[in-house]
């Protein structure tokens, strides 16, 4: 079992380190030492959202979190609660009109989300929306920032397959239509872009 010490690290470094460690040794248990507060909360949320099992033990300084299991193919998305806001991003363009303008507006919209105080609880990317969560997207930095703020990001698996981009997913997890449908129906507000 690998142990990584992420104490005295500022966010988002602990999440980045954990993500890297899990990717390097899939299936292996990972022990992470973390400071209490945002590092512990963010790493826990990150692992749970990806379907891992966690076990927390308080230490003299911080917490030890044992991460086990493996990320499923269709990843467990946190249960949407009534009152949550869910955003369905069904295109890589915002609005009807020239593609170039639409792409720019969508990019600007997602980048702007990182600068405003209100954020959605869940962002679902479908159809050409998955171009935003995969390699070559200009909003990966913004999505990572949103992820670190607790926004869950998920892309439609069928859409990733259609565009041959499953292996190129760079932000968030993969989801299916059950989760998309349930999340939209349960959400307090569902915003379709």
């Amino acid at each position: 079992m690998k142990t990584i010490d992420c104490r005295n690290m500022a966010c988002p470094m602990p999440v980045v380190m954990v993500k890297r460690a899990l990717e390097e040794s899939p299936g292996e248990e990972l022990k992470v030492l973390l400071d209490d507060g945002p590092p512990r909360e963010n790493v826990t949320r990150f692992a749970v959202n990806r379907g891992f099992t966690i076990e927390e033990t308080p230490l003299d300084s911080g917490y030890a979190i044992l991460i086990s299991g493996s990320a499923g193919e269709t990843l467990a998305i946190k249960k949407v609660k009534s009152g949550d806001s869910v955003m369905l991003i069904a295109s890589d363009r915002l609005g009807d009109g020239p593609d170039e303008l639409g792409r720019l507006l969508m990019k600007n919209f997602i980048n702007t989300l990182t600068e405003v105080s209100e954020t959605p609880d869940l962002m679902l990317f479908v159809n050409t929306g998955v171009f935003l969560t995969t390699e070559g997207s200009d909003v990966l930095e913004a999505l990572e920032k949103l992820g670190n703020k607790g926004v869950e990001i998920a892309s439609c698996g069928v859409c990733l397959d259609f565009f041959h981009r499953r292996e190129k997913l760079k932000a968030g997890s993969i989801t299916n239509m059950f989760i998309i449908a349930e999340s939209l129906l349960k959400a307090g507000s569902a915003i379709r872009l």
Partner: protein
Amino acid sequence: MVKDGDLVAIFNNIHRVMKAEKLLKEKRLNMLLIPAPRALKSDCGLAIRYEEADRTLIEETLRDAGLAAEEIYRKKGEEFIRIDNPGG
């Protein structure tokens, strides 16, 4: 979006900022089109962010293409300090 020390170029015209982004991307220069920070006035609400290390190349490329930014700022703490030479 903007870290301490980063540079932010404001264009005030959507067509110019789109052309600038396209050109810099073609040249594979490291930059990002971002919403103009609220503290800065920009008619089109868009700006290009880059790092000091890429500054010379980016600004020269834009100038050579007739796409020089209207205003350039450097983020310092919570403030944006104008660093281009207005009218000069």
